[in-house]
């Protein structure tokens, strides 16, 4: 984990056999009682205090349904089904207490089916708009059919306290560009487990964009179930005073010849702005020919911020293409400001230049013009507040 380091980048490449954390052995259950009450002593919860969860760790939660709206092109269907029915639970089961609370308390699941061979540039949108601070549960299941190629934006806004599970099935040869946008009002808390399973030659681009909310914690978990697939887990976040934004991406290389790229970038501004990034990659014995790289970079814009960043690589085979990671948290300091100012650039413009240059790159990877525009504007607004 890194204390704020002065603009430096540490990069490492690993050959085989660097055991770090046994991510694969984590218990899974849909029952809240199977997980102990949350304390900061538990590794999974060490970076936040229980109060910040605003009741999401309770056994009983309310349930979202009217708060969710959706739209998409022909060939995409939306249906609320019983969570006891198939295919719910087939992609991932809860690995922590809040995820389990979200799972058991969501009696219904929004099933989004993308037809086989549907290739569409029209965006699929699922909009979750919270309307109270009542701790609630939501379950979404996305099924991207074989040979389909689509874009889906799951956006969260309003006031919400939400335990969410999202399952994403990317069938053989399918391509899915998935964005989870967290733009909550202050007072909100959101803990989301997003499980993805990729079939043979499938491609998933998964982007987490977290900006608003007192607490936002997203755990994207991508598992390869067939060879030749590729996943990009991208993330971008901007934490202001008092916000806690946490990301715990995990790539499970459980099939050979798959590729993963994990790229998360964040900026922090204001007192007690806190971000956490725990990046886990597991390369199982069967996963020969794996190619993986994960990177996290944080930009500390003011004093009083804190960025924790921990890359973990667990490698069980020597026959890999490549595996590496980089993590760095740097300060935007007086010397940077001086250099830019000495070229005529005003201090405000200098900060804007640095932060936008740093973060927008990740947003651009989504290729969604409207989103790039609105998030750039949102970032500019935040910078003007700083």
């Amino acid at each position: 984990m890194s204390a704020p380091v002065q603009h430096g980048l540490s990069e490492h490449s690993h050959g085989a056999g660097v055991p770090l954390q046994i991510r694969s052995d984590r218990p899974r259950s849909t029952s809240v009682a199977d997980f102990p009450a949350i304390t900061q002593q538990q590794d999974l919860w060490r970076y936040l205090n229980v109060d910040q969860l605003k009741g999401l760790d309770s056994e009983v939660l309310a349930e979202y349904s009217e708060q969710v709206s959706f739209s998409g092109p022909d060939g995409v269907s939306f249906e609320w089904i019983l969570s006891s029915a198939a295919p719910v639970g087939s992609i991932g089961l809860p690995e922590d207490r809040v995820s389990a609370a979200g799972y058991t308390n969501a009696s219904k699941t929004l099933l989004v089916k993308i037809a086989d061979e549907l290739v569409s540039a029209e965006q699929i949108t699922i909009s979750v708009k919270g309307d109270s601070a009542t701790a609630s549960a939501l379950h979404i299941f996305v099924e991207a059919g074989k040979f389909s190629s689509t874009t889906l934006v799951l956006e969260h806004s309003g006031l919400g306290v939400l335990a969410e599970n999202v399952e994403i099935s990317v069938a053989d040869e399918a391509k899915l560009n998935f964005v989870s946008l967290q733009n909550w009002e202050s007072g909100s808390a959101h803990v989301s487990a997003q499980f993805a399973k990729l079939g043979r030659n499938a491609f998933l681009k998964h982007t987490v964009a977290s900006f608003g909310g007192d607490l936002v914690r997203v755990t994207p978990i991508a598992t390869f179930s067939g060879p030749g697939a590729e996943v990009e887990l991208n993330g971008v976040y901007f934490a202001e005073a008092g916000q806690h934004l946490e990301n715990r991406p995990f790539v499970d290389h459980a099939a050979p010849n798959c590729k993963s790229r994990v790229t998360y970038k964040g900026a922090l501004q204001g007192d007690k702005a806190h971000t956490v990034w725990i990046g886990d990659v597991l390369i199982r014995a069967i996963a020969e020919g794996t190619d993986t790289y994960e990177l996290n970079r944080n930009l500390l814009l003011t004093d009083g911020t804190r960025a924790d960043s921990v890359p973990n690589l667990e490698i069980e085979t020597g026959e890999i293409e490549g595996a590496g990671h980089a993590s760095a948290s740097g300060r935007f300091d007086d010397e940077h400001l001086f250099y830019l100012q000495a070229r005529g650039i005003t201090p405000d413009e200098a900060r804007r230049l640095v932060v936008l240059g740093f973060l927008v790159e990740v947003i651009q990877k989504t290729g969604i013009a409207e989103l790039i525009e609105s998030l750039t504007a949102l970032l500019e607004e935040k910078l003007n507040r700083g």
Partner: protein
Amino acid sequence: MSILQVKNLHVSVDTDQGAKEILRGVDLTIRSGEIHAVMGPNGSGKSTLAYSIAGHPKYNVTDGEILLDGENVLEMSVDERARAGLFLAMQYPVEIPGVSVSNFLRTAKTAITGEAPALRTWIKDVREAMDNLRIDAAFSERNVNEGFSGGEKKRHEILQLELLKPRFAILDETDSGLDVDALKIVSEGVSRAHAASDLGVLLITHYTRILRYIKPDFVHVFVAGKVAEEGGPELADRLEAEGYDRYVKA
């Protein structure tokens, strides 16, 4: 015709032991088109002079004046000074995370001239300037100074000099750490800028090597925070032969 005047400049820095005076009454006048070399031993305050003119917040001016065509430079912020036509090529340029060279150059040019440059001609100008300085086109997409070698950083400073076209340039040991080829390339860049816009140059250096490529009109010997002697180009040769002992002992 512009004129940059430094008059009786006193500058101190804050240290744990209190304020420490580094510049002790510097007097210097540079006119458009003139090339002034400043030479002096390590720690004599050359960089302090450069930074003080550029307005680095670490340096406190306790007495004296800096005037650009009669305007009080000390009242200007760092970016205002740059827009007024002052340029500092830094001894140790910092790395700027997240900002590509191309974005940086365009933003700086826009700030200096007050309007965005016409895209087509700008791209051509940048490419030409980079070619002249033997900077690979790939540098455009790299972050400013990030992972640049010492020599690359210096060439990148001169690239900015050529593109931003200031009235006065202060070059703080731009020649240090360069091999002969790079020194020639960098010197040519400075000479081009000088010829193109009647640039006034304050060239800080330890060695006469660069003065073979950039002929100074005046040489100032800088010792213990002030100018100890002034002369023409011949003074530089004497310094190289004799060193600074004469001044330090005096």
